[in-house]
């Protein structure tokens, strides 16, 4: 009997296939919504049955696949993966519902969205590196199509850029995985892609990649890190993101920002942190990650400030927010790490609201250029309401989930990385700046008569956003349901890293 | 005459063949040059056979001669078909497939 996790993955896959074959738009979207809700129901069942006081894997299931090279289909959830699976199952039904009005090739559209769900759930639950990698790559394909079929004017450029960038990163990661695999093979004499076994074998890896230049351990570490931070994305490997977002359809952007970026962060926690304390140049690696994190925070902020396109601004804000994840992970303090995990979860919810707002504005006013908008609050009061809340959440307003995450990251990272935290704090002012400036110019002020008569967002659009807003508020006031399980795992993760405190600047 | 004389002749023939392939424009001539190459190899085989004192080389040469004949036949067939279609076997003009 299949376990709940594989059931969830299979249902979404089956739903995707049925949706592809659907004859009418009505069928397609109904099937997609029902499937994603079933998947959500299973996710909730898992969530409610989840014991958040232990850090070990739960709901583990394992099936043999390619025994000769040690590949097993092994799935399981712990406090790192569980919230993200939940997030994926929250975002996808809402995205389907938000995109209820999609008319262009509806069956393919909804089918691809469900495939994304399959892919990300696979990534977040696989305990076998090989399977992990396969899901990691599979996720790219539906997104490529979502961008290139339903995208904006430069969709082809954006889609291919997205694909190539992230594919290169995954190949580099793959190489590092090989190195781990062979290392483990050499030590245990047993072929296995089991994630934990491989990560454990890292501890006893030795040798040089290039003697006198870089040790094997460091090279493997950097390879894995590269794979993840491109996905996150972190400066300077981020330039695919703004293009992808600008061109992607709203649903695509939501999934991209809310789920795909989280894969990078997930990799940091699942893979990077367990091996970080054993890296040869851990001090340098931690500094590197901290620099990447802080630079992403600040750079993303300033770039967001410079944007004319509302959606591009939101895209850069994602880069900035994901910087907290890197920073929190690099700090190696239990609560900074769980804060970083919480940031992932929270950003997933918040960014959904932001991209949906951009989508509604684009749809209604026909443009997202901030300069060409102005005063749309007059005709779009409902949108303005949810959008304002979304923007406030995004700028880290206390009482919303983003604040808890940023607060935990900043406060706890200060233990080990005080300089970086101080730098990151500078970003907060400007973060507020670009959010409010954009609101002021686009939504408030005198109505730009050139826009003609515009209408407010459709009810299903506003409702999807409102649900996200409620969730953001709920998790801002009561973070415990997900934060506790994160903290348990975060403590486990940094156990080996305790001695590292004070190593850093 | 030692082995090296045969080898020398063979290499000379080979070089002539290569030169011809590079410089000639007519399909027929190129075909002839390829025959030169094959025969230089045959000469080698036979010479080595004699030198090594076993007959394998000669057997190989026989195979190769037979194959060269078949090859030439196919080559001419292709050239004839081409000539019917294009009225030329000047290879400089046969370049609709490029880039």
């Amino acid at each position, binding site marked *: 009997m299949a376990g709940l996790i594989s059931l969830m993955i299979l249902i979404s896959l089956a739903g995707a296939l049925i949706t592809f074959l659907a004859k009418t738009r009505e069928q397609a979207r109904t099937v997609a919504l029902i499937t994603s809700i079933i998947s959500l129901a299973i996710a909730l069942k898992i969530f409610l049955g989840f014991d958040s006081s232990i850090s070990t894997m739960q709901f583990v299931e394992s099936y043999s696949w390619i025994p000769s090279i040690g590949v097993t289909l092994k799935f399981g959830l712990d406090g790192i993966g569980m919230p993200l699976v939940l997030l994926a199952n929250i975002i996808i039904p809402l995205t389907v519902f938000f995109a209820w009005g999609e008319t262009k090739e509806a069956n393919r559209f909804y089918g691809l969205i469900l495939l994304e769900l399959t892919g990300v759930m696979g990534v977040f639950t696989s305990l076998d590196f090989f399977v992990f990698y396969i899901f990691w790559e599979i996720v790219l394909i539906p997104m490529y199509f979502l961008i290139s079929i339903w995208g904006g004017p430069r969709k082809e450029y954006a889609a291919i850029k997205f694909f190539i960038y992230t594919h290169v990163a995954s190949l580099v990661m793959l190489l590092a995985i090989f190195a781990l695999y062979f290392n483990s093979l050499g030590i245990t004499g047993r072929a296995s892609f089991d994630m934990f076994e491989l990560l454990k074998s890292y501890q006893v890896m030795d040798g040089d990649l290039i003697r006198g230049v870089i040790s094997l351990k460091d090279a493997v570490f950097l390879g894995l890190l590269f794979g993840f931070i491109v996905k996150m994305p972190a400066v300077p490997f981020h330039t695919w993101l703004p293009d992808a977002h600008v061109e992607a359809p709203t649903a695509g952007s939501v999934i991209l920002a809310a789920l795909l970026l989280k894969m990078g962060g997930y990799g940091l926690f699942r893979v990077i942190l367990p091996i970080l304390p054993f890296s040869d140049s851990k001090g340098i690696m931690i500094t590197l990650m901290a620099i990447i994190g802080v630079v992403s925070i600040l750079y993303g902020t*300033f770039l967001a400030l410079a944007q004319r396109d509302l959606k591009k601004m939101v895209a850069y804000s994602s880069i900035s927010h994901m910087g907290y994840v890197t920073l929190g992970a690099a700090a190696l303090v239990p609560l900074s790490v769980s804060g970083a995990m919480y940031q992932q979860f929270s950003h997933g919810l918040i960014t959904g609201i932001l991209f949906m707002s951009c989508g509604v504005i684009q749809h209604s006013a026909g443009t997202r250029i901030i300069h060409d908008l102005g005063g749309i609050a007059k005709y779009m009061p409902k949108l303005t309401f949810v959008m304002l809340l979304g923007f406030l959440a995004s700028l880290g307003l206390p009482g919303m989930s983003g604040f808890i995450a940023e607060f935990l990251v900043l406060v706890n990272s200060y*233990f080990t990385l005080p300089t970086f935290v101080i730098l990151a704090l500078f970003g907060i002012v400007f973060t507020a700046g670009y959010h409010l400036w954009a609101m*002021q110019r686009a939504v408030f002020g005198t109505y730009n008569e050139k826009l003609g008569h515009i209408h407010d967002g459709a009810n299903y659009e506003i409702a999807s956003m409102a649900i996200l807003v409620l969730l953001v508020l709920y998790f801002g006031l009561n973070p415990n349901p997900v934060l506790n399980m994160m903290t348990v795992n975060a403590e486990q993760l940094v156990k080996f890293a305790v001695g590292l405190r004070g190593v850093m600047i | 005459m030692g082995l090296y004389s045969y080898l020398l002749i063979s290499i000379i023939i080979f070089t002539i063949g290569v030169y011809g392939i590079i410089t000639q424009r007519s399909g027929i001539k190129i075909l002839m040059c390829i025959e030169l190459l094959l025969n230089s190899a045959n000469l080698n085989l036979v010479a080595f056979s004699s030198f090594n004192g076993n007959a394998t080389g000669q057997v190989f040469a026989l195979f190769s001669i037979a194959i060269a004949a078949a090859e030439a036949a196919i080559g001419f067939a292709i050239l004839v078909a081409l000539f019917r279609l294009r009225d030329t076997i000047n290879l400089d003009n046969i370049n609709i497939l490029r880039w």
Partner: protein
Amino acid sequence: MFSDFAALIVLLPVIAFVLTLFLGKKLPHGGAYLPIAAIAGSFIISAGIFLEIYPEGIVQQSIPWFSSGSSTMNMGILIDPLAIVMLLMVTFVSLLIHIYAVGYMSHDPAKSRYFAETSLFTAAMLSVILSDNILQFFISWEVVGVCSFLLIGFWYHKPSAAAAAKKAFLVTRIGDVLFLAGIVMLYVELARIIENPANAFEIGSGNFILQFKTMFEAIPLIDKTQLTYITLLFFGGAVGKSGQFPLHGWLPDAMEGPTTVSALIHAATMVTAGVYLVARTFPMFAATPDTISHGVPDALLVVAYIGGFTALFAATMGLVMNDIKRVLAYSTVSQLGYMMLALGTAGAVLGSKAVGISMFHLISHAFFKALLFLCAGSVIHAVGTNDIREMGGLFSKMKITAVTMFIAALSLAGIGIPFLNIGTAGFFSKDMIIEGAFEYGEVTGDMIPYAFAVIAALLTSIYIFRLWFMAFTGKPRSERHSHESPSVMTIPLMILAVLALFFGFSHTGFYGYVESNFELMGVDLGVHEGEPFHPSVIVILLPVIVGVVGFLIAYLIYNKRILDMSKIISSQNPLYKLLYNRYYEPKIGADLIGVKLTHDVAAQTGEFIDRKIIDGLVIDTIISSTIFKIGEVIRKMQTGVVQNYASITILGVALLLVLLRLEFGGI
């Protein structure tokens, strides 16, 4: 009994917010009665608690919130004397202003949104006051900021209002970030203290790391330098929220909101949150080392100087403003400066008395400034303009407003009769501050804060009476038909006027009660109270003298017109220009730093790097185009001529020869 319902003080307005937001449009008066009832309820509970705990009770309730172990964050309530006086003041003033707003906002189509937002604001402000921990304090503080943002931008279709809202939020945000940085540093200090077994410092059960109680208990263990940083960062937050120099620029601009908002948020309550923060964490300020001036904790020295300077600095600008609300806004900034000055100077020499002095001024200021704003609102409501040059002669038409405003002005100017202890609220409160500054000067030999305070008092008197005379006396300067406001507006005016006149008499009881605050919490301030305080006659008289002098100057110039001001008020006069342009603060702050440096320089440079260099040059040009170009070039090698192919094959053989020769060294 009442203290069991302490949480309702915050929750009632929150509920009112939700109900008004969603149902307000369908209710009469935009649902105004919901928040009014809620705030009245809060006021009643607060009053009940006050009666219960007076004179030396404390209410403390706390529940864990998130995170675990020694780092658990909590939510909780702390009602001590400091909090209860603020609670009473905020609920009361807020209640009055809400009632007033029923009339003032009666014609606005979006009034239900207005009442929802003010209700949320009140809730957040009450939560600031009630917080028993610095994190909840900060969170509420931020929500207060957002409400301020929303209310300043209430008429969002006005570009100036939208811009002012943004400016207010951003400038206070700078302070907030400093505040947050302070919390970060404090948390890390506390966590290290707890972690280190040598300190034997434990958080008792039911207590939490960021509670004020824990913070105060840990003061002796905190590294002194760190403590200075932490307190200065907290003060940075206070500077932003309370509009102190150099983050004062947003407050005058915030007057773009409805006048009731200005009265409630930008005069009486929210802006005092900064002062409240310093008062709340006063033991930490008092415990900072005295590296600069002997006997004066560094943090308090900074507070004193910033406060004193702001008091004077803002008053100078108040002199030249023509917008009635801007004058009042600068006046607010100036008065907040006084409160800071009190905390700094008196704090250094008088210990916890300073908190009483400062809070007393805070509360009397709340009454008379709310009154001033509501009067101004009444005038604006009647005249339809903010410009005092277009007013005049309103006295006859709006008697109640004129009289109540005059009372408020007297109170602001601190007029009273020394030695007899008769006077307006402002007389008592400001007098104590100036005397405190003098005492500070006596002890430390540093008279500069005192000088700031006295000169500012003179200017205060001048600008407020200038305003009053220009608005209410002389000939009408415009043709508008103006009339007295409805009673729903005038009754709150009268109530506030009574308080502005008579609140001062509670001063002795008030000082004693609030001073005991930290003792009740069991905190040793470590500041020894100075010698019994016997200032000379001139010191006691001086504040009143400057107040009266200011009044006379204003009377002579603006009522009797003995001086032609047109010569002074000209764009040729550099001093006037400097003041009128607000020391070029908007230009430097918003235009230069905000737009030019941040947006045009930093952000656009980033954009350039991102799009043109990383993306354009590296990705598109170097990598992408190069590949395409190479592809095109190599492609042309495929000439289609078969001899070329053969030649390349032969060349390939040669190439292999070379390669193998390199490896084998053969041939």
